[in-house]
């Protein structure tokens, strides 16, 4: 009985175990038709293998993918580690210096805020714009902090600023109206309650009046029970005729 293709294929792939392997070899040694068939299968296999993607085609892609992974994954990880290491290498005096700088900035902002938080809805906030790195941090002893914070209230804003300026801080203080949270940030809680169509003004439930461009033109306004728009001090800004109430 001759060998079928499946046996020959299995033999070809060297997947045939004994005793069948020896039996196939013995049969092939004396059966010319099975030998021819086997030669044919070998040819097909080598033709298929010869069509493989070549090393020359693979190499540039292998290099390219590796360098992409190196850049975005391997080196990124390495960067993280060295950054942490660098942070921990800060010596104790340096750390105290950084901490002291934050104390000065914090206490300073509190003092200014406390003194000037005014009733008309505007707040004076210090805007400290400084890059804190080792070049512009002055080392301060912890005992200095106590005296600084105690006496800070005795200085005027101007003096505090001068002092900070002298120490090399780039301090920028601006008067700002309280920036309300935008409509979309608050979500459903803030609603448009009235519009003044002639002037393009919109009043929202958070007491803000905005013009057509969305700029806040007044704060603390309310819609009274006579459908007038009234400012926080009681003056009528828009009469009921001008106001269109939004349900």
């Amino acid at each position: 009985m001759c060998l079928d293709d499946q046996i020959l294929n299995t033999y070809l792939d060297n997947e045939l175990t004994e005793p069948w392997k020896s039996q196939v070899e013995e049969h092939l040694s004396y059966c010319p038709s099975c030998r021819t068939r086997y030669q044919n299968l070998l040819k097909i296999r080598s033709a298929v293998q010869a069509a493989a993607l070549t090393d020359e085609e693979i190499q540039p892609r292998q290099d390219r993918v590796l360098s992409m992974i190196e850049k975005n994954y391997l080196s990124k990880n390495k960067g993280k580690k060295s950054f942490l290491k660098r942070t921990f290498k800060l010596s104790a005096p340096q750390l105290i210096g950084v901490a002291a700088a934050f104390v000065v900035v914090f206490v300073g902002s509190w003092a200014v805020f406390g003194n000037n938080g005014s009733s008309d809805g505007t707040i004076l906030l210090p805007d400290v714009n400084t890059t804190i790195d080792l070049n512009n941090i002055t080392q301060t002893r912890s005992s200095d902090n106590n005296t600084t914070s105690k006496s800070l209230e005795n200085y005027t804003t101007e003096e505090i600023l001068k002092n900070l300026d002298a120490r090399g801080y780039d301090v920028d203080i601006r008067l700002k109206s309280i920036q309300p949270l935008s409509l979309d940030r608050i979500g459903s809680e803030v609603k448009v309650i009235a519009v003044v169509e002639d002037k393009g003004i919109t009043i929202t439930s958070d007491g803000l009046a905005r013009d057509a461009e969305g700029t806040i033109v007044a704060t603390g306004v309310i819609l009274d029970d006579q459908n007038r728009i009234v400012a926080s001090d009681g003056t009528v800004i828009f009469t009921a005729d001008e106001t269109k109430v939004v349900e």
Partner: protein
Amino acid sequence: MEIRSGDEIAFRQVYNAVFPVVMKVAYHVTYNQDVAEDICQDAFIRFYDKDMSFPSLDDAKFWLIRVVKNLAINHVKKKMRESASLEKVMRGPQVNPFKDGASELILKESTAAVRKAVSELPEIYKTVIVLREYAGLNYKEIAGVLKISESNVKVRVHRARKELEAKLDREEVNVP
């Protein structure tokens, strides 16, 4: 030797050993070198990111081969769906992608014919033949990657070669 895929040294070792294999698998399933490269990149990034542990280099290789094979088959299926719907709209002359050189390498006629024949195999035969001839896996390893039995692998290899033979005979290729 245990392999941790998120460890840089282990990753490089696996990458150097396995990239050519998975690139061949991806290519001979999709027959598009750029797509194959993207698939391999995707697979190795997953491999590194997941930080898995493998008992040996071979196990890491089988994991990568399985992922690449799946990505490649998904790509082919998606491509087939797209071209099926596209064909309804326009039936242009078909270019033989196996003859125009994606690389400068001018393919031999027989190489182009074989690649075309392999690409036309049904998916279940194509995967076994690709894993056997291009990834160099034995039946047991193929069975492991495809999660089928070894005797099933044996049958599929046989049928795949039979189909290839018929296709290549039709193309009148002089097999060396």
